[in-house]
Every structure is written in C-alpha cells, then in structure tokens.
C-alpha cells in the first residue's frame, strides 16, 4: 500500500515536470519575424474599408500577391476590437484600425506597428445626437450614451472642449455599438455618440439633433491599414502587394463609369445598404483616392499635431497603460524624421515608402 502510494507520488512528480516541459514546447519560440510567403490580414465592415472586401472578391488582392510571389489571406472579421486584439496578440500580420486604437492597443501593447496606408478620415461619419438639446453647450449635465474609450469618446471630448465644457459636465454611459439604434429608442437616452451606418439611420428620427460631428475636426479620426513593423521590414512584398491592391480598387470605385458603379454597388450590398446609402456614407468619409493625396496628408504637419492630441486624450483616460508616467511613454514616428513621444520606444510609425512607390508608379 505504502509503496503503491509512493509510486503514485513519483508518477505525479514526473507528470508535473512533463506538463511544464510541454508548456515550454508548445509556446515554442514566439513567432520570429523572418521572410515568409503567406500572410493573414483582417478587415471589418466600415464605409472606408469596404474596398478591401471588393478587392478580395474580385481577386485583386490575389493578383497583387501573386505578382510579388506571396499569398495574402484577407479575412473579414465581425468584431472590430476583436480583430485588433488578434493582431496585437500576434495571430494577424495586419489589420484595419482607427488611429487612436492603433496607438492604444497594439502600440501601447509593445507591438511595433507601421501604418502602411492612411486610407481616409472621418468627415462626418461620427456624430453626437441630442434628443432635446440643439447645441454642444446643451450637453452640460446630460447623460451621453457612447462606446466608452473609443474614437466616439475622443469626439465627445473634442466637442465639449469646443464649448469650454469638460467631461465632468456630462455623465457617460457605455453602450454597445450593436445596440445604438435600439438604445436610442428608449426613454433613458438623452444624447448619444454614434457612427455610420447607425448614425445616418438615427439622424432621420424626429427626436435627433446633430449637435457635433467629425467634419468639425477634420483629419483627426483617421482610418489606417496597419502591419507589424518587423514583418514588413523582412517582407516588403507584403507592403507592395497591399498598397498596390488598395489603390487599384480605389481607382476603379471613384469613377462614374459602369465598372465604378458596379464596384460601389457591390460594396453597398456587402455593408448592408444600397448604392444611395453607401454613397451618402462615402460623402462623409474623406477617402484618399490617389497615392499623391495620401502622401500629402501623411506629410502634413497636422498629422503629428493630431496624434499628439489623440495621445494626450488616451493618456488622460488611462489608455497608455498602468506604468505610463507621462504621455510620452510611447513614441510615434512621422515622415521626415518627426518624432512625438519617447524616441527610444517608437511603436507606431507612419511610413510612406510604399505609398510613395505607388505615387511614382513603381509598383
């Protein structure tokens, strides 16, 4: 009996060591950046990102990937934040994100990230609605439903600033974006920050006054395609293929010929609306249709200013992490060697190498 018990104890000890060893083995060396040939990039539904879906359906992504001898698995994910979290965790090579989320999730999480394409900025796609108030000043004392800590929250902070109010003057209620429309219909909602497509639906209600929208802060809510910096450095083919595919789709969709209308109709359908609905969303999305426009926007001195503002907002809301002693913990690099924040800890890079290649017709 005693001997058997000893045997069991010994077996258990061996088992424990084996489990620990297995853990080490399974973890393997965390994916080391190196030359590889297949990549995974995720996109989610948003007016400015629908061209990616079209590019996949029409084989444009595949065409450009083949040209550079790689394969790109461009997957559509249902949940935007989940796609960014997956990218941050390392299971995606690239993802589409708003500038603020690119800073606060992967960059703050230590994942060196490069903004490959500044695709567009929100020019009315995000807005603040009030049921009875008519101006931003009326928000004082109101309850505001929004997705907290998102670009909506940033928009609200900028709106309040414009009326010399602060966040202390309102009460924020975290509300899921899937429930914007249902929530607005309840008596509990006084004001709401929403984005398209829900925003355009809500604007048609009699009890919805648009008191502020992102067209009042143009160029501050930017939608960017981000990729892992190390992966991009070792595999420039990924950058070339993505940028090439992107501007090919944009050149198709911006025209008013049959192919352009067909492309926009397909994108409208994929985002659950019709051509007119999608075009009204595009009207409030400032797309950079040509590489030259994207270059000009990325080079302008406004971009570092904007990112500084976004960073300060993120810092004051605790989004730069626990250990963050100042807003400078994470560095951001812009074209022309401009650096905002800690130059020793650059984690977000706005890079023009590939877009400039496209502008010069070298892709």
């Amino acid at each position, binding site marked *: 009996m005693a001997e058997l018990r000893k045997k069991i104890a010994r077996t258990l000890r061996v088992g424990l060591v084996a489990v620990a060893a297995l853990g080490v083995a399974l973890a393997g060396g965390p994916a080391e950046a190196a030359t590889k040939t297949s990549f995974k990039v995720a996109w989610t539904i948003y007016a400015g990102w629908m061209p990616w879906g079209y590019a996949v359906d029409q084989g444009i992504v595949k065409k450009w990937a083949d040209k550079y001898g790689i394969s790109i698995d461009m997957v559509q994910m249902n949940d935007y934040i989940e796609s960014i979290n997956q990218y941050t965790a390392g299971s995606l090579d690239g993802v589409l994100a708003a500038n603020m989320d690119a800073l606060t999730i992967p960059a*703050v999480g230590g994942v060196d990230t490069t903004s490959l394409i500044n695709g567009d900025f929100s020019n009315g796609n995000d807005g603040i609605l009030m049921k009875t108030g008519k101006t931003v000043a009326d928000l004082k004392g109101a309850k505001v439903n929004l997705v*907290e800590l*998102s670009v909506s929250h940033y928009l609200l902070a900028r709106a309040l600033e414009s009326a010399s109010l602060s966040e202390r003057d309102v009460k924020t209620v975290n509300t899921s974006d899937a429930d914007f429309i249902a*929530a607005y219909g309840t008596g509990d909602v006084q004001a709401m920050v929403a984005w398209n497509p829900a925003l355009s639906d809500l604007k048609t209600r009699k009890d919805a006054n648009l008191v502020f929208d992102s067209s009042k802060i143009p160029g501050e809510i930017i939608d960017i395609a981000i990729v892992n910096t190390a992966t991009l450095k070792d595999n420039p083919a990924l950058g070339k293929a993505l940028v090439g595919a992107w501007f090919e789709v944009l050149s198709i969709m911006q025209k008013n010929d049959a192919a352009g209308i067909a492309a926009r109709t397909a994108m409208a359908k994929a985002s659950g609306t019709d051509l007119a609905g999608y075009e009204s969303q595009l009207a409030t999305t400032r797309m950079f249709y040509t590489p030259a426009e994207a270059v000009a926007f990325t080079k302008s001195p406004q971009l570092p200013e904007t990112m500084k503002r976004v960073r300060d907002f993120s810092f004051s809301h605790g989004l730069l992490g626990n250990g963050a002693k100042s807003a400078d913990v994470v560095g951001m690099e812009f074209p022309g060697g401009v650096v905002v924040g800690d130059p020793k800890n650059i984690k977000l890079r706005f890079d023009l190498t590939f877009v400039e290649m496209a502008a010069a017709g070298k892709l």
Partner: protein
Amino acid sequence: MRRLINLRPSRQGTFFLGALPFAIVLVIYFVFSSLRLAENPADKLMPAFSTMGEAIVRVAAEPEQRSGTIVLWADTGASLVRLALGLGIATAIGLVFGILNGLIVYARVTLAPFVGVLSMVPPMALLPILFIMLGLEETSKVALIVIGVAPYLMRDLALRVEELPGEQLVKAQTLGASTWVIVARVVLPQILPRLIDGLRLSLGPAWLFLIAAEAIASTEGLGYRIFLMRRYMAMDVILPYVAWITFLAAISDWVLVQISRRAFGWAHLGRGA
C-alpha cells in the same frame, strides 16, 4: 483488496491532489507569460503576476481619478445588488408558482403548459426587447436575470412537490389539515432545501445573464468593467476581475450550502454537499 477503486489518499495527499490542477494551470500560465514577456516586455495578452498585482491595487485601493470612486468595490456593489434583486424575485416567483403548479391541479392545468413554453425562450434573445420595453437602466438587467432563472425554479419545484408521497397528503387531510395548512406544514418544509439546491444551480446562469446585460449599457458593474477594459486589452485588470467573479460565485454557493445544512440538516444525510 488492492484495487485502484479501493485506494484512498492520505490527508496531505488529498490536499496535494486537490491543489494540483490549480498549480498546473498557474505554472502553464507563468511559462507562457514569461515567454511572451521575454519577447515583448509590454505584452498585454498574458501580463506577469506582478503586473496584475499592481492592477489589483489600482482598482481595489486607489480612487479613480475621474469619478473619485474605488472601481472594484463600486462595480462589485452594483453587480451584487442586481444579482440579489434578480435572484430574490426569481426565487419568490419560483416558490409561489412551484407550489401552485405542483399541488393545485387547477393551477397546474392552467399554468404548467405556459411555464413549460416560457422556459424554452432563450433569455439572451429577449435582451433587445427588454431594453426597448424597460429602458437601459437597472430594471432590464434585473428582469433578464429573473426571466432566465425563474422558469427553471418554477418547474424544478413543481416537480419536487409532485414527488411528495401521496400518503403524506392523505394523512395530513385525515388529521384535518386544510390546503393552506398542508402547504405551510407539509409541502414548504420539504421543498425549501430543494429551492436552495435550485438556487445554487442557478448561480452560474444568473452571473451569465448579469454580465451580458452589463456589457450592453452600463455605467458600473463587474461585467461593464470587463467589456470596457477589453477595448484596450487590459488583461491585467480583466483576469483578476474574472478570478474575483469566480470567487464571489463560489462564496455564494458555499453560503447557500451552509444555510441549507444549518436549517435543513435532514436533507443533507447521505450526500456530499
């Protein structure tokens, strides 16, 4: 006889074996976390235990800058109030309708089919309707818990009442008991332990409904915080919150067992917990 089924571990052995799975999970977490942190010291997915410790101090001991409250306690308070209200109302409904459906034939033929159908409605699917009908505030969150838990309690109790030996009811009647006295003196004492059992099994679903409701529209609560933190992958807060919720659930389960043991010792003869 030396057979595996006859072997019993010693007292220390029992403790060691019980702690083993916990230790294995912690070791595996530690290994993976260390590997990820060696690669990227700012990794948010699997923070080190020390990082989580700092986060716990921050949420449990330091007032938040913006609101001035200590978030862990504010969240815990808000969530426990919702949970207690939801479970309390569900228990009351379950008890009343359970006895009615189990004992009174007229009530059973009227209500049992309805309750049977009602209990098949997936509560999560009702959530959007609840929000529109009852608003985004506390009522709809409590209502979701009630809708999720009450039908199960009603059906469970009705079955237990029906299982009571017919002889007991006959005997009580020969001794002159009215329906009311039978409910109060024969039925109630025997099904209260069953009610507590039902409540224990409902704790899991109740937490699920609570967190789902808090994720949609809220200003505080344990589920609210987890979904808010998810926005920037603050696993150093999310993991301790999950552990805290688990702990609260385990404690409530233990408290219910103790109440049941003290009050209805007879119901615990010959069973584990």
